């Protein structure tokens, strides 16, 4: 048979919890009630956090900020399948990922306020910074997973990229290595329908992004990214496979960016409200709440208590964020090398000169404390 089929593939899509709260019990992952509640609480909290952050930006108390709203399931749930000693690396939009990893959100605010001290992960965790040039972290996370494989202690590395970013060659090289060396890596494509103003349909002309996996001998699956249970199952399965030595997985989470790209963007220039509305019906928080209420795990009373608790938490984080002293300009010279090179020593002194020129010799004693080590 000379025109023969040499390979065949199906791309599967996983959905467990429908938008109206119905569950496919046959696929339901075995998870404790606490975990279900944790998913809900986190999604609820990060949504409120997001709303506050936007307000802060609008009132001039924060810099450009990328919105999370709508993507809570995709962001908050997969990290729950990890141990702290596993690696997690989100995209720049991934506040929900860092939150799920236990980062204090005052630092997220500080970062988006343009303060380098905002990069601050919980001790003991193995988190890495997202990369602003999108996709450039993808091969690095492959390297993290590679190190875990070599250490043979079952560690894994999870990372994210957007639907837009899936067009970057970085993903290709990362998946080529990950597939080739069977690395314990989980790649999540956070397909929120948009790359700033460019719709998903302007990226790869493939039916799904999940099917890219096949080109690398990597397992791939598409998931309803607004379905916390499906997202959890896909992530947990992928983590288990990775830990078990069965290699990487590419998970496409289909979700939606409900707001502007960032606070610097105006989405009304390029998209209609209609599409957004159709996605509002699929809100991950709403459906999770229905599910929990159905299971008697949640109630309006608990909802109210959570709202109060959340407000208090956010107030505290905002207050903590705003009470950081201004950064010490000299601090930028810290931590560039293990031991600062002579140009940095000289230049730091020049910056001191500048500060004195501006504010007199006394100014150096009045600077806020420097945080970093020098030289």
């Amino acid at each position, binding site marked *: 048979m000379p025109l023969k089929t040499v390979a065949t593939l199906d791309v599967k899509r996983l959905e467990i919890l429908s938008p109206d709260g119905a569950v496919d019990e046959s696929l339901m992952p075995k998870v404790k009630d606490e975990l279900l509640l944790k998913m809900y609480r986190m999604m609820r909290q990060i949504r409120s956090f997001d709303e506050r952050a936007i307000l802060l930006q609008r009132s001039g108390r924060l810099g450009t900020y990328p919105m999370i709203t709508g993507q809570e399931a995709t962001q908050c749930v997969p990290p729950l399948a990890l141990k702290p000693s596993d690696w997690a690396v989100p995209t720049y939009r991934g506040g929900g990922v860092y939150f799920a990893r236990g980062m204090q959100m005052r630092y997220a605010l500080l970062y988006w306020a*343009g303060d380098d001290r905002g990069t601050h992960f919980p001790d003991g965790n193995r988190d890495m910074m997202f990369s602003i*040039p999108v996709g450039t972290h993808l091969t690095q996370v492959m390297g993290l997973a590679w190190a875990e494989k070599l250490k043979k202690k079952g560690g894994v590395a999870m990372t994210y990229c957007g639907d837009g970013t899936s067009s970057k060659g970085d993903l290709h090289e990362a998946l080529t290595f990950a597939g080739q060396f069977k690395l314990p890596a989980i790649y999540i494509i956070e397909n929120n329908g948009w790359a700033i103003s460019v719709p998903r349909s302007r990226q790869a002309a493939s039916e799904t992004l999940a099917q890219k996996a096949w080109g690398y001998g990597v397992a791939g699956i598409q998931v309803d990214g607004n379905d916390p249970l499906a997202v959890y199952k896909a992530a947990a399965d992928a983590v288990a496979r990775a830990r078990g030595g069965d290699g990487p997985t590419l998970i496409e989470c289909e979700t939606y960016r409900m707001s502007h790209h960032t606070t610097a963007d105006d989405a009304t220039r390029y998209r209609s409200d209609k599409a957004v509305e159709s996605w509002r019906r699929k809100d991950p928080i709403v459906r999770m709440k229905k599910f929990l209420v159905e299971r008697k795990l949640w109630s309006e009373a608990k909802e109210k208590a959570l709202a109060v608790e959340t407000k208090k938490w956010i107030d505290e984080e905002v207050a903590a964020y705003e009470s950081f002293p201004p950064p010490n300009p000299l601090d930028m010279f810290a931590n560039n090398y293990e031991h600062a090179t002579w140009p940095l020593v000289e230049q730091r002194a020049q910056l001191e000169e500048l500060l004195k020129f501006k504010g007199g010799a006394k100014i150096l004693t009045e600077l806020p404390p420097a945080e970093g080590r020098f030289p």
Partner: protein
Amino acid sequence: MKTNPPLKKAAAAPAPKTRSLNLVTAVNEALDLALAADERVMILGEDVGRNGGVFRATDGLWKKYGDERVVDTPLAEIGIVGGAIGLAVAGMRPIAEIQFDGFMPAVFDQVVCHLGRIRSRSRGKLSVPMVLRAPHGGLIHAPEHHSESPEAYFCHTPGIKVVIPSTPYDAKGLLLAAVESPDPVVFFEPKLLYRSAVGEVPSGHYTVPIGKARIVQEGNDLTILTWGAMTVTSQKAAKKLAEEDGASIEIVDLRTLSPVDLETVLASIFKTGRCVIAHEAPNSGSWAAELSALIAERAFLKLLSPVMRVGGWDIRMPLFRLEQYYIPDADRVVMAARKALNF
């Protein structure tokens, strides 16, 4: 066989009138004129279409010229620049946009290995008349990797030209010259000046020649060589030096970084004998080093004091709360100038 015949020029406006425009509007007007003049001209990049660019540089053009000529591409910079190279080789006149300076390293491979080499590798048979546009520099409180000054990487690369205007007039005229250039031009736009630089701009077609610097102000005691947004900073410094030191400062805005207008530079140095070079990039290995070296080689006996460089520090640009301590401000230029003046 000429693969790439010269660009049709937009007709000069019959009765050009001069309006006050900001720099990004001047860029927009140049793009509009170029698209109108020759149907080979096209724009490609991320968010340049329906959204009109994140800085609105391409505002309205997608609607006016359609989806085939003002193209929102997939998010893939090698694709954008490699694609534009192919388009140009095959006879189009692509204007490719990289959304921010900080994302240009992704295209170095195309730029270093190909952009400036195709004419020579093909022994003159093929050419790459394209423009690679990108915003440049800091001080707009942008996120990480959005405030970079990568010009030195490009200036060290043979076969291309590197341009950076600092006024609306120059932005429009240089961009039209870049689009008409038979050779590839990397075109930086100082993003701090997109809205803050406002000036008189004639309607209709005109060009500002690539390779010619602009004397911003004349002076006799010291030359400040600068480019991009630092031109404005240098003007502030010059004012302070005039007021406080009674010094007469000449400011040269290079406008074209490569090939640099050495004639104008040397004429100024020969006159003043003292020089400060002010720019935003990490100072070591910056384009200021090349200028300093050129001056040392060619004006050795005319120099009354060492050429001083004032640039960014040799560290990554910090997040924006500290950017004003990273990018030289007028005080730093003043300090350097005083050192030179009092040498």
